[in-house]
């Protein structure tokens, strides 16, 4: 028989002191929220807010039905949009792949110089939104598709580069070791030991970025970088709501299709 004590043992997840602190923490959060709400709504004109449903209904009624005949003027910019996304992604991949190999700690040829440089380029391109890249490039190159492609490519470098170098760093060393042990050269170690391991991630990342780029390239036209966004911008300026509806529907359709393709491709690889 085991030892049976007189009292049932007591066990608590937290000590009383910790519980008290937890409650104080929650109280502070609520107080902060109330204070922020006060600050945020200081200059709100409530009449507009109460009016919002009516305003939305008004625009909605003017936006329907979509102006289907406008479609014939959308095919060309839609094609441009898809091309901007696709070419931009390809260009981005071409620049991101070498960067990723320079940035990954297990493949970089120089830890002290090249790796920090590559990491900086990846962070820098990633931290600037493609719309801002497009603004800059339109003012440098003038409006048009080229600015859009470059904007998408630049933004994609950071995204693809970062995910790819992480995939490279996560490769199984024993496979690399085995290839090294055969007397393979550096290039062969890379193509046999590492590339096969990161290839699925590479395809997955690329298709995922292409899918995101379709969405991003649809708005680049707002700043003059080509594609369907230009039509959206002018329709909005002319208050041509039925056209706006059609454009939004077209963008939605394109995004759904691209997402479907990207999901299919990723599923096929992994």
């Amino acid at each position, binding site marked *: 028989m085991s030892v049976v004590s007189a009292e049932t043992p007591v066990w608590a997840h937290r000590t009383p002191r910790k519980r008290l602190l937890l409650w104080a923490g929650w109280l502070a959060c609520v107080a902060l929220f109330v204070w922020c709400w006060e600050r945020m709504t200081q200059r709100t004109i409530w009449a507009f807010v109460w009016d919002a449903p009516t305003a939305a209904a008004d625009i909605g009624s003017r936006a329907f039905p979509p102006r289907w005949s406008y479609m014939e003027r959308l095919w060309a910019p839609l094609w441009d949009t898809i091309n901007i996304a696709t070419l931009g992604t390809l260009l981005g991949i071409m620049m991101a792949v070498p960067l990723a190999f320079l940035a990954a700690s297990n493949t970089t040829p120089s830890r002290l110089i090249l790796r920090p440089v590559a990491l900086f380029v990846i962070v820098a391109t990633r931290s600037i939104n493609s719309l801002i890249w497009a603004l800059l490039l339109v003012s440098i190159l003038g409006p048009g598709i080229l600015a859009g492609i470059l904007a998408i490519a630049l933004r994609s470098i950071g995204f693809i580069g970062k995910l790819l170098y992480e995939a490279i760093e996560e490769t199984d060393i024993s496979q690399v070791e*085995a290839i090294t*042990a055969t007397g*393979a050269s550096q290039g062969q170690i890379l193509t046999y030991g590492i590339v096969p391991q990161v290839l699925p991630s590479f395809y997955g990342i690329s298709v995922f970025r292409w899918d995101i780029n379709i969405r991003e390239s649809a708005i680049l036209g707002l700043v003059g970088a080509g594609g369907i966004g230009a039509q959206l911008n002018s329709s909005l300026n002319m208050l041509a709501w039925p056209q706006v509806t059609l454009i939004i529907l077209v963008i939605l359709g394109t995004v759904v299709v691209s997402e479907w393709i990207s999901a299919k491709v990723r599923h096929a690889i992994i």
Partner: protein
Amino acid sequence: MLRIEGLTKTYKTGDKALSEVSFEVPKGQVVGLIGPSGAGKSTLIRCINRLVEPTSGTVHLNDLNVTGLRAGELRRARRRIGMIFQEYALVERLTVMENVLSGRLGYVGFWRSFMRRYPGSDIANAFRLLDRVGLVSHADKRADALSGGQRQRVGIARALAQDPELLLIDEPTASLDPKTSRQIMRLIMEICRERGLPAIINIHDVVLAQQFTDRIIGLQAGRVVFDGPPSGLTETVLTQIYGEEDWTAMRNGAAEDAEAEAEEKAQAEKMLRAL
């Protein structure tokens, strides 16, 4: 054939993995390297082909001082040393054939290997080796579609594709079941005998080591504490290498397992008959 003198490895963390290890392996001898985890077995065989850089000491392969080689020469030396790994270390997403051919990487140029255009003689030899390890019909399967034992056979074929003068084998059976372990050990031994290949096998299964190898080297905390024939592994020696343990019981363990299995089977049959 292989001469190791005063090999010492101190890791950056200050851990001394090997200290003053010296021994020679003549042609055709298969050496079992035993010792507890962390004794430096893995480090020792990795120092021979310099996957791990030794801190001091020398490794001679015939008359070639491997420890003094520069990058290009080291690659040529590595071609002569085949290596077989614990977790097989195949390139999982490549086919069996590509994995075997990767043993030729030291002999072919970058583009040839990149385009998978290996010389006809290499391909013919790869098929011969796959036939030898009994996997010819699996040549175009991906490595990750094979079972553990099959993968290790591919690992053996890859090492042999190098046409090595020495085999380094790191825990070849650690990820395999007892039966497959024996088959793999038997295969390795047969191949070493056929080709007169010397080999160093890291192995933690003392019974397997004793049964299959020509000579045992016992490592303990980075030092050689035993070097002799398998029959010389007495209980005192094993205790010196591994610490206190009931060695006779371990040896009898295998036999007992078999007996227990037979008994269970008999019991089951009895129950079936009763039904």
